[in-house]
């Protein structure tokens, strides 16, 4: 039973979804707007222009073309486009503040050291602990801050223990993209697609968490196998000892070195430390209860952010500066650009083309969507990929079951970044950490060998998961979107 059709689709996608004719503005505006979007994405993918500059410029040029060609009747239409996504922006602002204050309290650094110490300096156990920490921290803090904390700890511990940091950092980078799948608010891409699909937080958690853990397990296994020599080789404690004694002495030495890290040394304000833990827990519970309470996730996130400022005693200006303005401005430009392109009918045409390729078969559609999204997310930022695919998938849900398509999009967009070193922010952070902290470079070849294989295996897991759920009708029914929870593009 597929309950799929959102009742609140103000765009042309809704028109198509409801079986009406897509707005027709002629081929020229469609071609011009499509060209601007492709050029913008090329600039973002190649890094020839800062992504915010590219998105804002693309948004402005598309607005001018859309107004000049009558795609948008008046300028108010731009505000309508932006209003649809105000909830996503609210979640980003609120969680940025909360995450910054929690980070300053030392809470996550405390937990990271405490857990890493349990590995007693054993390279394999440490690797497993760091992978698990990554998934947990990214699920709570989102991908960039979560990766940053674990990558920094990994590098510092590797220096202390004289270990090769490559497997640890690559493991962190690959597991981070799985961590972003744990909850609705764990990643920006997840949030955007989840909002558009109207997926409830708890439903998302129940369906997505097993996939997140399975794909993280795949990443752990592939990296462990690829670097088994590095992870097993331990430096000898002293020359002149037999192998067994040397191994025991080296293990003892490593355990002592790790034990010197005192997690309490990172707690500068004990009251803030506990308050941060409570606020973060309260916000996660609030996210889970948002829908029954009849409020949006942005309300919960903003409440958490405001409470963090109020109860932390920290300088509000400092917390506000830490809001991820890069992502917000990127979104603003991107949403306006995609909104204009969507109004031209181009994305609906693309959706029609994609649907016809699949022959209206949901299984084929899932495979095509997963592969297409994973590949494009690997070569460029997954946010524009997901943002562009949302109206396309919305249109496709008019003729195909919605849940498998939304789940395919969200899973593939998050994991697709594992395929290349520039595909996700976690990979960028990890590689930068290797250069900054360890003076080591991981080339595209080495990344493909590990990340590429990981991605292929993860996509097999995703396909098996989605097709299994589709075949046995296991996806929970998608609720009707309320008027207050407008879908993203």
């Amino acid at each position, binding site marked *: 039973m597929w309950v799929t059709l959102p009742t609140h689709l103000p765009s042309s996608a809704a028109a198509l979804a409801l079986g009406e004719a897509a707005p027709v503005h002629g081929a020229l505006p469609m071609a011009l707007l499509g060209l601007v979007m492709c050029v913008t994405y090329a600039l973002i993918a190649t890094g020839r222009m800062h992504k915010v500059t590219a998105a804002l410029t693309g948004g402005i040029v598309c607005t001018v073309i859309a107004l000049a060609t009558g795609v948008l009747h008046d300028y108010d239409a731009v505000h309508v486009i932006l209003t649809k996504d105000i909830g996503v922006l609210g979640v980003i602002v609120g969680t940025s503040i909360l995450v910054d204050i929690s980070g300053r309290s030392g809470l996550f*650094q405390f937990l990271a050291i405490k857990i890493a110490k349990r590995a007693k300096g054993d390279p394999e156990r440490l690797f497993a602990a760091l992978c698990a920490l990554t998934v947990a921290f990214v699920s709570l803090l989102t991908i960039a801050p979560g990766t940053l904390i674990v990558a920094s700890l990994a590098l510092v511990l590797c220096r202390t223990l004289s270990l090769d940091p490559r497997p640890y950092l690559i493991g962190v980078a690959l597991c981070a993209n799985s961590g972003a799948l744990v909850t609705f608010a764990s990643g920006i891409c997840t949030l955007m697609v989840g909002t558009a699909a109207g997926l409830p937080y708890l439903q998302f958690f129940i369906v997505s968490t097993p996939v997140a853990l399975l794909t993280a397990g795949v990443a752990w296994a592939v990296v462990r196998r690829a670097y088994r020599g590095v992870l097993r080789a331990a430096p000898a404690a002293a020359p002149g000892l037999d192998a067994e004694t040397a191994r025991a002495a080296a293990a003892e030495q490593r355990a002592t070195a790790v034990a*010197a890290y005192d997690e309490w040394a990172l*707690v500068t*304000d*004990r009251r803030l430390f506990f308050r941060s833990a409570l606020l973060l827990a309260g916000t996660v519970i609030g996210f889970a209860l948002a829908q029954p309470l009849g409020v949006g996730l942005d309300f919960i996130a903003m409440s958490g952010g405001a409470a963090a400022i109020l109860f932390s005693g920290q300088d509000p200006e400092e917390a506000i500066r830490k809001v991820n303005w890069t992502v917000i401005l990127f979104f603003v430009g991107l949403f306006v650009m995609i909104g204009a392109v969507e109004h031209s009918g181009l994305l609906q045409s693309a959706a029609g083309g994609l649907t016809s390729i699949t022959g209206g078969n949901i299984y084929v559609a899932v495979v095509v969507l997963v592969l297409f999204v994973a590949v494009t997310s690997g070569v460029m930022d997954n946010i524009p990929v997901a943002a562009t695919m949302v109206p396309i998938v919305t249109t496709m849900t008019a003729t195909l079951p919605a849940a498998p398509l939304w789940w395919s999009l969200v899973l593939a967009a998050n994991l697709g970044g594992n395929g290349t070193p520039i595909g996700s922010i976690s990979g960028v*952070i990890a590689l930068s950490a290797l250069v900054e902290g360890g003076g080591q470079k991981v080339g595209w070849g080495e990344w493909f060998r590990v990340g590429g294989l990981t991605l292929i295996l993860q996509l097999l897991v995703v396909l098996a998961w989605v097709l299994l759920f589709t075949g046995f009708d296991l996806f929970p029914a998608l609720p009707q979107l309320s008027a207050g929870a407008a879908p993203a593009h």
Partner: protein
Amino acid sequence: MESNDDLKREMARFEAARVTAPIDLQPAELRVLLAVFDGTDQDATVAALARAISARTGATVREHHATGAEPLMGILAAAEGADLVIAPSPFGRDYLTEGHESLSTTIDLLLTRCEAPVCLARAPVDDAERCVSHPLVALQVDRHRKVDATAVGLALARGGGGLALLSVVDPSERTKREELIGRYIDPRDLSPEVLATLASARAAALTAALQRHAREWNVDARVKFGLGEVVERTLDVAARRRGLIVAGRDRDATSEGAQRARRLVLASALPVLLV
């Protein structure tokens, strides 16, 4: 997007948590207080501080009214067996007229010769209980005595008070190369972020010891970091906190630490407890 600076800061933060010499911190035992009166406008401040410290620690208060041309020997004799001496500075002169000119010879000598910690009363204190229960421990005034200073601060703050440790790095000081290398900090990179990390590293062992048992001692423990000249930064933070300043003192009056402690007292309107 997180920058390399964020990465470096986070790494340095973890590196600062490496405590190579753990500290066993315990609150100092303050059983007997000696309150020294000189008949000036500071007697009321000395009495208020003595009452407040006694109320917080349960210590008994002995009073000594110092008179005559040579009060020092009398004070030193009275201080035998005392765990803390509370005295006015400047001695024998009104704070309001001469407080910022000198500590007085009596206090200079007392700081050199007295074995017990000395709490110097300065300007009148509005709320002595709040002032005493929320001490600020300035760790870098004399870094060799920072554990003792923290132990005294803890004795005053425990049981519902608040204790702040202040660790300052002065960029104009030539930071010891081995201190940087010992902490995996690149000696070529002395940016404010790196220096702040060094401040954190200098306080790491004390921070760990304090925070680990803060609940048991029922104290609101905080650690603050500062960049700049030690005395100036200490006075800035103390002015906002309005609590007693606690710092170490070197008995050798010519040492850098002893001179820094004297400058701190002279510039402070808040009472300063030198351990």
